[in-house]
Each structure stands twice: as C-alpha cells, then as structure tokens.
C-alpha cells in the first residue's frame, strides 16, 4: 500500500525506511513515525514518552491519535494473518515481488519454513 501511495502521488518514497534506513524517506516526519511504531512495540517507556511528545509538538494531537490507531490496528492484524495462515493474494504477490525481495521481507516466511510468494507454491497452502 505504501508503494501504491508512492506511485499514485509520484513522490518516490524510499521504502527502505520500513526496514530501518535512516532519514524520512521522502515522507514528512517519516523517521519520527517509524520511531513511534518502534517505541510502542518496544519496552522503553521513557523513549515512548519522548516520541509521543515529539509527535504532539511537531504534528499535533490528532496526528498522535491517528498514528496510535494505526499501530493498534496493525499490531493486531498481523496476528490475524499469522495465526490463520492466509496467503498473499496472487496479484499482490506479483506486484510486490521485487520490493519484498529487496527489503528481505520474504525471509520472514522462509524462516518459518514457508513460502512467501504463492506463485511458488507446489501445494496451495502455506506449510
């Protein structure tokens, strides 16, 4: 979706930001928002306090609420995907194959002995 957004806007976001590259990735406050996600899922409460304060100061209270809602959604939705074994849709796998390989995301599946791209499946289900 980030790539779709980037293509739609023609703004060339640097998707390496997802995997820890520094900078904003051409997304306003990109580094701050990555830090926020990291802090919410981490255990350092003081760091989370600091990042939260920075978002309120630089982006506003409403932005903090909406950012919190997105972290809350995806911290849970990832668990739905992982615990039900749903595969990536073929069309989405095809359109994101290059970026998934470049960012090392396929390794998440391979580490579990599974197949990241459903087009590679010999049996249909993830195993």
């Amino acid at each position, binding site marked *: *979706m*980030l790539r779709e*957004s980037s293509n*739609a*806007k023609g*703004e060339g976001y640097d*998707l390496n*930001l*997802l995997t820890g590259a520094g900078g904003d*990735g051409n*997304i*306003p406050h*990109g580094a701050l*928002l*990555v830090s926020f*996600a*990291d802090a919410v*899922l981490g255990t350092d409460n003081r760091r*989370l306090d600091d990042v*939260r304060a920075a978002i*309120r100061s630089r*982006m*506003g*209270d*409403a932005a*903090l*609420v*909406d*950012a*919190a*809602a*997105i*972290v809350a*959604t*995806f*911290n*849970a*939705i*990832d*668990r*739905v*995907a*992982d*615990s*039900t*074994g*749903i*595969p*990536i*849709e073929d069309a*989405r796998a095809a359109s994101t194959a290059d970026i998934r390989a470049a*960012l090392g995301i*396929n390794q*998440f599946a391979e580490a579990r002995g*599974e197949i*990241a791209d459903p087009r590679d499946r010999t*049996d*249909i*289900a*993830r195993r």
Partner: protein
Amino acid sequence: MKISYAHAPVPVRDDVIAAHAVAWERIANPGTWFDGATRVAIAAETRNAPHCALCARRQQALSPFGIDGRHDSLGTLPERMVEQIHRIATDPGRLTRKWYEQVLASGTPETEYVEIVGVVVTVVSLDTFCRALGIPAHPLPAPIPGAPLRRRPATARQRGEAWVPMIHPKDLEGELETPEERKLAKYWGGGLANIRRALSLVPEEAYAWFQLVETQYLPGKAMRDFANEYRAITHAQIELIAGRVSVLNQCFY
C-alpha cells in the same frame, strides 16, 4: 463497563471511542462458540501472556519449538487454549501450520480457534492503542450471561488457501442459511483480500473485527483513494506506520 478516554492526554476521535466500546462489549457477551465468561478469560490470558516465563524463553530461542514446559497461566482456561493465546500474543511471526495442527489435535475445534483469535487481537489492538497514548489499559468487562450461538456457516470450507477454513465471497451469492452469513455477504459485497476473510469461519468475528479495523485505519474505499486524505496523517504516513509495525512483527502477509 463503558470505555472512556476522558483521562487521555489528547482528545480521541468519537468514532474510535464508539468502536472501542462496541469491541469491549463484544468481549463480555456470549460469542459464537464461547460464553461471555470464557471470552473474558481469553482476554485476561492475552494480557497475562507477556508475563509468562515459558513464552519469554521461547521468544529468546532460535526456534520456539525446542522449548518445552508449562505456561504461567491464570489457571482458568485449559492448557491447549493458553498455548494458542500466548503464542499468538507473544510470538506471532513464528507460528507455523504444524503448530496450528497441533493446537487442533490437542482438542480445540477450528471454530473455537478462530473465535479465540478474534478475542486475542481485539485485546491486543485496544491495549496497543492505550500504550501508544500513554494511558493504562481498560479494565476488562464483566461477563454478560447467555449461551453462545453455536452456529457454523455451511459456506465456510477448507479450500487449501489458509490454515483455517474460510468463506469465499462467491459462496455468499446464493441462498444463505444463517443471519451471520447474510450480514457478511452484505458487508463484503464482492471480491476482497484474504485478510478480510481470515476469521470468516466465525462470521460475527470477521464482521466485528473489520468494523474496528476500518474505524482505526480507513474505511475500505478510502484505503486506495490516494487523491483524498481522511485522517490527520496522510496515506503515506499511515502506510509507513503499518509497514513498519508489520516488519517488527515479521509478518510477511
């Protein structure tokens, strides 16, 4: 129990408050396969999972499957349910189909498995929201008496797509047996991503879960409407946060 964000440091959107109130009330109410007391117990065990020594050892191990032992549980649910709840809560990125099959072999029906997922992720989501805002998690609701529906949709089948049986949108085009299927058919309205189908073996969980998702994230049509912005952060900022969280969770979906 009413959900309140009056103590939050920032004003929370009214639609988020309303969605969280509905989600919390659903936990307390009888579900499709569990009564309210069991659903609240699942919620409590979800919150207990981060304090489990076995889960901590497994998280630190190269593979969680070589570490045996008993979970530190609250003692209200059978170990097979505690294993499912704790693993989904603490180490979701390393779940495998073999593990899922072992959970079923231990005595958990696939219907109950899916309902447990629905309760766990609801608690994870609301608790994550509270942590993100710097406020305490909401007290768990008191169970509401009543019997579960115990109705499995005939349209949910195992087609070799996912570990769990799911409903396919095409199956919802004909005459439907249950109100839950009819509700889902009206909501889905055609083709859709697998993530929306994931919990459809328990249609009420699938429907309720995505009501919460669409409120916290974006309504379906807004997700790809890149010409307009619907939140205080842009599509790009939303997807950046979403992508980063998924990387941290090692979720490849």
